């Protein structure tokens, strides 16, 4: 500790203050860089979240809505397809929704990363195939029976239940994945925030401590210098000790004071000698 104080006194006050200022700038640059890195980390995390889990759940909801439309179109076909034009219209809309569901489910099963969701999607596609075959047969019965919707409906009643349940499970599974990914991301952000705060607090505390020690050292030595200066101003050199060392500005001033003390002592000595002679 004493060695450090001696070393610090070898440094000019302007150098010390310059170093402190430079230290502050470096600390703030480090804090800025840390903050930028933090923001990039958070941004990357949310980009990854948007790139996969959120994209999957969005696609799944589209398929879910299309499936409900497909079932609705089937009902419209049975209920309103009495006329050939209406039959053609609703039949076409049903087939379009059927194709959209099929394409959406297959595309999602190819891109989805979650294994459980993929398994459920494969089961849904198989169940949808079965349902489509039954709808096709029921449609033929409906057309052959002159819009006998009861016979057609009897063939497919409740057939949409299995694929509906399966796809609801897909959506639930993907929603849970989004929630868990968001929670993990939030935890990661909180951890990084704590780390950044800890580093910032540590660096600022260190800088504050160094500043405090430097200022305290300067103030103490200035106070000693002021006491010496007051005594010299009164020519009070009896037992005056000038213990202000160091190679900085205060140390140099202390050395000059030693010369002044010696000069006053010499003058007093001469004055005493003259008094004795008189």
């Amino acid at each position: 500790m004493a060695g450090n104080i001696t070393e610090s006194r070898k440094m000019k006050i302007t150098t010390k203050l310059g170093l402190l200022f430079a230290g502050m700038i470096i600390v703030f640059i480090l804090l800025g860089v840390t903050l930028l890195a933090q923001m990039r980390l958070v941004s990357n995390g949310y980009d990854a979240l948007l790139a996969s889990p959120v994209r999957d759940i969005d696609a799944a909801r589209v398929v879910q809505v299309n499936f409900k439309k497909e079932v609705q179109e089937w009902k419209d076909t049975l209920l309103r397809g009495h006329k050939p034009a209406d039959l053609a219209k609703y039949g076409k809309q049903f087939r379009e929704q059927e194709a959209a569901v099929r394409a959406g489910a297959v595309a999602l099963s190819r891109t989805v990363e979650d294994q459980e969701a993929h398994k459920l999607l494969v089961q849904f596609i198989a169940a949808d195939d079965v349902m489509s075959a039954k709808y096709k047969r029921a449609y033929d019965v409906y057309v052959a029976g002159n819009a006998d919707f009861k016979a057609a409906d009897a063939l497919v009643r409740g057939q949409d239940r299995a694929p509906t349940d399966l796809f609801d499970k897909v959506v639930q599974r993907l929603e849970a994945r989004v929630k868990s990914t968001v929670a993990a991301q939030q935890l990661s952000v909180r951890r990084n925030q704590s780390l950044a705060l800890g580093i910032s607090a540590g660096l600022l505390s260190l800088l504050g401590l160094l500043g405090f020690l430097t200022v305290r050292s300067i103030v103490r030595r200035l106070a000693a210098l002021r006491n010496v200066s007051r005594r010299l101003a009164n020519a009070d050199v009896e037992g005056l000790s000038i213990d202000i060392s160091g190679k900085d500005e205060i140390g140099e001033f202390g050395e000059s004071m030693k010369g002044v003390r010696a000069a006053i002592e010499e003058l007093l000595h001469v004055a005493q000698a003259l008094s004795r002679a008189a």
Partner: protein
Amino acid sequence: MAAKLTEFYAQASSQYGVMGRMKLAMLTKIPSEKAGNEPDSPDNIKLFQQAMHQLKQAA
């Protein structure tokens, strides 16, 4: 006893008067009373020689 250092004071006194003694004390930081107790070390002698040289230049 520091005979040589005391001699410097005598020299300064004779050549430059009281002002010379005072300046010698200021430059060496050793007043004449203390000079009598200081050793005639090479460093001290060199210090006084340099101070005397400065006095001579300033005169």
